[in-house]
Every structure is written in C-alpha cells, then in structure tokens.
C-alpha cells in the first residue's frame, strides 16, 4: 500500500476511509482507484452503510420465527399477519442531520423510512417517533424540539401517513446530539412482497422521482459516521449544514402512489429506494443482490444543478427518488403510470450479464458519462454492498462498573414529600402529538398517549381483516447507563408489556442502536452488552429481531451520549372489535397489582426516574428481570385485554404497565386519565412507590375476585391495592394529592417548559 503523506490530506481520508481500507480497495480492484471509485467506496464503506463496527455483534441476535417472511438485511422486516396480509416494519435514526437542521433533518428521516416500507411493496400506514433532547431550560433544546416536531409534522402529515406515537426523553447527554428515531409500519397483500434485487440482463434501470442535486452529499460519511467537534454552547458544526438533505413530502406522496400502482400492476421486477449514499447504494445493492452487472449512464440522470461531477451524482442524497428495474416491454406502461402521478421517470442504465472472472460470475457496476462513452468507474457491486470492512473493535468495561452497581439510590434519604417528587415526574406529551395527524386511514383505535398504539389491520388495497396490529417504541438511557445489558433486556420486556396493555401479543421487534463513538472501547462494550441483553430477552420471550439500524458517533466534544438502544415492537390482535380499556379507571373499581408471585425482594432503584431526575443519582443496580415470569404475566394480561378488544368481556376496566416513575406515576396517570382519584394502601415506602420493577401491571376492575382467581390459575399474584373514587389520589402514608393538581402539573409540564400557555 502506498499512501503519499504530504501537507494535503489524502483524498481517501477526506472521504472518510482509513489507510487500511484504502489498501483493501487497491487489492480488490488490483489497481489504484480513481476519484469516482474512491467516492463510491467512501460512502458504501461508511459506518452508516456498512455497519463495520457493529456487524460482528449483531450476528448474535435471534432473527428467525414462525411468522417471519423477511428478516434483517433487507429494507424492512416483514411478518405474516394472517388473512393474506404481511406487515413490514423498520426503524431508523436521523440524529446527526437533526442536530444540525432540526426541521429538515427530522422531515427527511420520515421520508427515508417511508421509502424503505414501500420499496418492499408495503403501503406505509403508521409512523412513530422516539425523540431525545437535553433539558428544556436551555433555549437551544427548545429550538431543537420545536424544529424536529415541526419537521415530522409537516412531512408526515402532508405525505399522508399518520404518526401514532413515540416517546420523549430528556437527558443532558443529548444536549449537543439529540436523537431523532423514526419507526414505520406498513402492510401489503402477501403476494405483493418484493425484494430490492435486479434481474434479467437487458432490463432497464429506471430512476423515479426527484431530480438529483448537491444536497446531502456525504450525509452518510461526513455526517452520520463522525461525531461533532462543537463544544458545549456553540453552534454545532454549522459548516455541515449543506450535508443535510431537504425534503418534499408532495413529491414523496406521488412517488408512493406511483410505486404502489407499478407494483400492483406487476410492472417492475425489482425496486430499491435511494437513501443514504444515493445512487451508489441503490445500484450496487440491487446488482449485488441479483448477482447481475449494471451499466449506469450518468448523462440520463435528471439534475437540478449544473456542473455536477460524476461523484456528486452518484453520492448525492437528494430525497424522494427510487430505482426500479423494468423490462423493455413494460417501459411504456411504467412511463404512463409515472406521467399520471407527475413522477419523473428516466432510464439511466441497463442490467447486464455478470462478468466471468476466474471461472466465477462477478456482478460489476460500470458507470459511464453516456452510453458507449468511456468507463468512469468499474467496480464489483458486491465489494461495495457486501464486502465492506468488519471491525472487532476493542471493548472495555468501565473501571467503576462494579463499584457503581453497589452504590444504589436506596441508601439516599427518603423524600420529605413523596407527592412533590411524584408531581415532578408527570408530563403529558400531547403538545407534540397534537401536531401529528394520527388518525388517517381510520385505523387508529388507540393513538398516541397510551401504552402502545393499536390499529385496525386495514388500508387501501388490503384484503379485509378483523385483526389488529399494535406498535410501540421504548428507549431508556437511565437503565442502559446503569447496565447496558440488563437495561436493554428490560426495554424488550417493557415493549412487550406495552403491547399487552392493548391486548396484543408481540410478534417481532426491531431496534435502533444509538451509541457514541465506536472507537471508544467503553462505547463498544456498551453496544456489545446491549446486543447481548437484547438477544437474551428475545430468546427468553420467543421473539425474532427482524430489522435494525445502528447510529454511532453520537458524541460531541469527545463526550458520548448514554447508550440508547431503542426497541420497536410489533404485536398482533386476533380480533379487534372493541376499544381497549385504556388507563382511565372508574369510580368504585378495585385496583389490583398483577405480577409474579412473591416473595418480592427489596426494590432496586438504580436507573429509576426518581433517582436520576429527583436526586441526580445515576449509580445503583437495576431491578431483577425474570424472563420466564415476565412471559407469563405479559401473556396473562395480553389475554385479558384481548378478550376486551375481541368480545367486550367487561372484566378489565383499566390497565397500565408499571414502568418509568414506578407505581406512583402509573397510579397518577390512571387517575388523571379517568378524572377520578383513588385510595391505595400497602405501599410501604418511597422505594416501593418509585421502583421500576418490571413484570407488573395495574389493573382496575369491577370483578376483582374473578380476576384474582384467573391470575392464581395462571400462577400469578393479583394484590388489591385499593379502590378508585373521589377527587384525590391517596397513597396511605406517602401521597395525598387532588386529581386536579396532578392533571394541572401533567398538562402544564411541557407547554410550561416551552414557555407557552397550556
């Protein structure tokens, strides 16, 4: 390998490639790459596209299950939901663009994930947006939050896909590096399922949608695969703003309709979205998957700027574009569909026979300025798409890990006033979700604000079904900072518990791994531990992981964010005919705590909201999670609620799982939802009030004896906590607050922090 060291940074380094990677490229090509070829490798071998730091760890996740039609590695995971309907799901991050330009960063995140779904033939039916920011007393955080929410709102609403939920997390670790994750769920008739592969030498390579500009060049390599240098309080890396793409939901809406019409009419043999790494990614991935060659004619690429260089055309991340493989015979029909939807369609290349090298076929990507012109780049497609570097980066457990586990918040003095701490933990996120259309398609039975979203499994072009589909996202930097392995396992447990609250049985999960700089050994340890925790929980609960996204380099000024894996879970309901009970209890209902049979160990409060947000204490140990017991409790509750949504059994009046903020927050949220107080006893101390011990549900019922008997039969415990009623929430010896006071604080928390009237 010969790298000339000089005053000027070598080109490959400027493109984000290491000296070692450059050497590998020279070996693959058997010669020195030219500028265009190097640019292709630069984007395709970026952390964002190649998963080079995480891939060896991701292999440890279980990915198979009875209903899985498509697992990780494709544009989206797909499961068979029954009745001839397949459900596609995917989660992604758009953290770095959103840190720089929150409105466009978040908007294009929505656009990108939608394309991943309709690329598979699915009509996008629902979005969810887990968001993390620094505390809102900092004006920059308010700017970020308002910008991100307006970006999701303006794009998602206009493109016509409802945003049915999400999460809002605040922690100082996100001040310079907010997290903007987005999950999309879509559905399709099973027979419309398509994969992003090219086939049939002689077929046309057609670019659909927007023209290609200079926006988003280097998005994956410059932005997403490096941290921010900016020190706290400065305007973070403003110079990277041109690397942020600009979205146009109207273009995307027409693109969705045109593509679904093309797929329904079976006019395409393969289709692939253009996202990160643009044409470089779409051409090399479709060619590599189909094991065919591809010739690209750059002169045919519609462009919105003059003087664009070949490397710019190939790596631009201009939004709202798709690549379709079409037979020459179908091309007139394809062009007609696109014309009707006012979607630009251009033939930019052809599928070719693979070359034969050393007796084996090699799919080569050849790029020319114009047909018959000189070859500008000639690389094996697989080398770009599949043969990126794999790193087993050094890992190190933090030296104080064991010590911190032993320094639990249980040792802290109890609060003088549990009620004041409880009030501080309440927050109504409706300021966010009221800006999102969460009802389009008339499927939203339980929308944002509940434990999980519950939708009818229906949509334009789908066969009729009485089934329901539930989705939820869960992230928790407090838990994962204490113990990334146990914390991530708890997230999976939390996600399936949320699904149970709307009567759904979990079918699959996807994950979005938001971590710091993988070149920091502690970060790699966090990532590896989180993946192990996820794998253990999924095995214990019998769940496949059908997709994921890894976002690394979430750091600024050398400081990494707390480990923030986000779990997206998909659940199914056999019959959805009635609304789920929700959190609102009624006057006179008996309040039960349903969970595993005791004896229960003394509660652990490490990583709890009370410890972190009320006391600033981040050390300690997480509560224990028994996966077998969890599976039993969750199955029991999902069954109870499924009977409510299926046939209106009338046994469960209200249900809510115990999670962030513990039993205290769960009871307060139920009181607020029902505008009804309660008198509750048997909660011994603030430890029991605020512990986030998993596998527990608060259930309100008018028939407590019956419910308790069912619980006993299932090998579970249903303890009577008290009775709903009155205008006050009283927890004997700990809390006495009027429901008005609770609701007032809950409603005002977010608008108040944003300086707005509630």
């Amino acid at each position: 390998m010969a790298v000339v060291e000089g005053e000027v940074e070598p080109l490959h380094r400027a493109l984000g490639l290491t000296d070692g990677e450059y050497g590998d490229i020279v070996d693959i090509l058997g010669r020195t790459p030219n500028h265009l070829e190097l640019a292709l490798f630069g984007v395709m071998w970026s952390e964002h596209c190649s998963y080079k730091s995480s891939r060896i760890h991701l292999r440890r996740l279980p990915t198979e299950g009875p209903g899985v039609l498509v697992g990780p590695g494709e544009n989206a995971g797909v499961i068979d939901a029954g009745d001839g309907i397949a459900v596609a799901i995917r989660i992604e991050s758009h953290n770095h663009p959103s840190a720089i330009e929150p409105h466009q960063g978040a908007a294009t995140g929505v656009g990108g994930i939608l394309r991943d779904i309709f690329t598979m033939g699915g009509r996008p039916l629902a979005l969810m947006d887990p968001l993390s920011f620094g505390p809102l007393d900092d004006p920059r955080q308010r700017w970020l939050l308002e910008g991100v929410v307006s970006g999701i709102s303006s794009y998602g609403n206009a493109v016509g896909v409802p945003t049915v939920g999400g999460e809002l997390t605040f922690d100082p670790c996100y001040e310079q590096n907010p997290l903007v994750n987005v999950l999309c769920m879509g559905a399709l008739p099973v027979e419309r399922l398509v994969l992003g592969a090219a086939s049939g030498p002689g077929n046309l390579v057609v670019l659909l949608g927007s023209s290609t500009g200079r926006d988003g060049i280097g998005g994956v390599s410059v932005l997403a695969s490096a941290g921010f240098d900016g020190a706290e309080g400065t305007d973070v890396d403003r110079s990277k703003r041109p690397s942020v793409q600009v979205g146009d939901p109207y273009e995307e809406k027409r693109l969705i309709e045109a593509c679904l019409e093309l797929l329904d009419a079976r006019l395409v043999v393969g289709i692939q979205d253009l996202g990160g790494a643009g044409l470089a990614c779409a051409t090399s991935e479709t060619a590599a998957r189909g094991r065919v060659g591809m010739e690209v004619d750059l002169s045919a690429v519609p462009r919105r700027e003059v003087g664009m260089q070949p490397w710019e055309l190939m790596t631009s991340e201009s939004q709202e574009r798709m690549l379709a493989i079409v037979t020459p015979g179908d091309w007139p029909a394809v062009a007609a569909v696109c014309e009707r939807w006012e979607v630009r369609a251009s033939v930019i290349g052809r599928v070719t026979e693979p070359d034969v090298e050393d007796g084996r076929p090699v799919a080569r990507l050849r790029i020319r300025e114009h047909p018959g012109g000189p070859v500008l780049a000639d690389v094996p497609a697989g080398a770009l798409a599949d043969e990126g570097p794999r790193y087993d980066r050094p890992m190190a457990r933090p030296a104080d890990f064991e010590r911190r586990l032993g320094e639990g918040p249980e040792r802290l003095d109890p609060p003088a006033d549990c009620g004041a701490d409880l009030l501080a933990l309440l927050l109504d996120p409706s300021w966010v979700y009221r800006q999102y259309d969460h009802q389009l398609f008339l499927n939203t039975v339980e929308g944002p604000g509940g434990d999980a979203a519950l939708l009818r499994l229906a949509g334009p072009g789908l066969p009729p079904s009485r089934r329901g589909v539930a989705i939820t996202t869960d992230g928790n930097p407090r838990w994962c900072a204490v113990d990334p392995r146990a914390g991530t396992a708890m997230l999976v447990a939390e996600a399936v518990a949320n699904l149970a609250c709307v009567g759904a049985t979990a079918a699959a999960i996807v994950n979005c791994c938001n971590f710091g700089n993988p070149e920091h050994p502690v970060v790699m340890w966090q990532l590896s531990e989180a993946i192990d925790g996820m794998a253990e929980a999924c095995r214990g609960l019998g769940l496949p992981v059908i997709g994921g996204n890894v976002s690394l380099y979430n750091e600024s000024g050398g400081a990494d964010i707390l480990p923030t894996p986000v779990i997206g879970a998909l659940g199914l309901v056999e019959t959805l005919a009635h609304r789920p009970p929700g959190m609102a209890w009624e006057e006179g209902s008996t309040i039960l705590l349903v969970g595993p049979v005791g004896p229960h160990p003394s509660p652990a409060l490490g990583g709890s909201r009370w410890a972190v947000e009320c006391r600033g204490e981040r050390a300690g140990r997480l509560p224990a999670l028994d996966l077998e017991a969890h599976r039993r409790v969750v199955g029991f509750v999902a069954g109870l609620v499924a009977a409510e949504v299926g046939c209106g059994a009338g046994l469960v009046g209200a249900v809510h799982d115990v999670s962030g903020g513990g039993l205290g927050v769960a009871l307060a949220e139920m009181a607020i939802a029902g505008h009804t107080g309660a008198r509750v006893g048997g909660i011994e101390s603030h430890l029991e009030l605020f512990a986030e011990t998993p596998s527990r549900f608060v259930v309100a019922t008018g028939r407590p004896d019956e419910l308790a008997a069912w619980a006993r039969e299932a090998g579970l415990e249903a303890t009577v906590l008290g009775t709903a009623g009155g205008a006050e929430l009283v927890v004997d010896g700990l809390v006495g607050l009027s429901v008005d006071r609770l609701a007032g604080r809950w409603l005002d928390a977010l608008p108040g922090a944003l300086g707005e009237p509630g």
Partner: protein
Amino acid sequence: MAERTGVVVFPGTNCEHDVAQALALVGAEPVLLWHGEATVRGVDAVVLPGGFAHGDYLRPGAIARFSPVMEAVAAFAASGGPVVGICNGFQVLTEAGLLPGALQKNRALRFMCRPVDLVVASDRSPLTAGVPVGTRLRIPVNNFDGSYVCEDRVLDELRAEERVVLRYVENPNGSVDDIAGICNAQRNVVGLMPHPERASDELIGSADGLVLLRALLSARVA
C-alpha cells in the same frame, strides 16, 4: 338520493380512501374522480376530501382550483348539485370562489389534530338536513390552516341567511364567530374543517360523523 358520490382526488389528496370508506358505510357508492379529468361522471353528489392537494404549494387550494375537474365541479354546483369540501376540500372551495372567505393559519400557528365538539347551527344544508339545530357532534379536526376568516359584510350575510352550518363549542383555532362550516347562498355547497369520516365508527373514537354523511346521502339534487 345521492347514491353515487364523487370523491375528488388531486395529487397530494390523502383522505380519499377514508371518505370513500365512510360513504360506503352509510350506503353510498363512492366514485373516485381524478383531478385531471373535467367531468364529475354523472354522480349525484361530490365530496372534496382532505389532504394537501398539489402539496398546498403557494397556499392550500391555490393550485387545485385550476385543476380541470374544478370546472366540472363548478358546473355541477351551479346546476344545484350537492358539493361538500372537507378540510383541504373546504380550502379548495374558497380558493375556487364557490364559498366565501378564506382559511388562515390556526391561532397557535401550529398543526392541530384532535377531536372537537361541534354544534349544528343550521339544518338547511345537504350535510345537516334533518339534523336538529343544536345537535352536538364530536368530530376530529386535522389542519394547519383551519381558522375561518371573511369580511364583515360576508359574516353579516352568513349570519342573516343562517349559512353558518356548524360551530365549534370551544373555538380551537380563532375562526370568526366559531365557524366550523358554512354553505353558499344557494345552500348546496358546504365547506367544513372537521373530518366527518374520522368519526365514522365508535372503534376509532366516535361515530358522530355518520350523522352528516347520512344527511348527504339523503340530499336531493335540486
């Protein structure tokens, strides 16, 4: 009976399937009408559904009024045919001059998606015929530009002629006179910001919108 009901689809419209589904629930036969064709294909009533016609570029409805189908809709309205604009459809009707006034940004300068309580203010429209004045309905709004404004002279006319069809019980967006829906002087063209189709089943929160859609189904072609 307005059995065959046209549902106009502009590029960027996104509520056409929902409206068609809700119309089918009350027994109507929905017929999708493509914006590029200057015909309403002999339907008995026309609905302009919500969405973002032509991306809401310039301002909502500003481009959609020039779509060929709007000539046919205007002719249908002039002949007395019932026309209903929901949300973006209402915006298109004001831009096309088929209804007076305009829809401006909500008072809070933000998109708003939530259920609101409405009261029927006039039963003399194809959407409220047979629904007693004072009837309360819970139907969602979903818009950024939902605040109705008009000149004082127009407001006086709307009031004097009882052309305010629906009012908000609690004004969510700053609309003048709490207006949620109005009709034209001939009373056959109605625009409203709330989405009746989103209140078409108790399973999704409310079935109150069916009251309005049933009235439309019974509307007589004048």
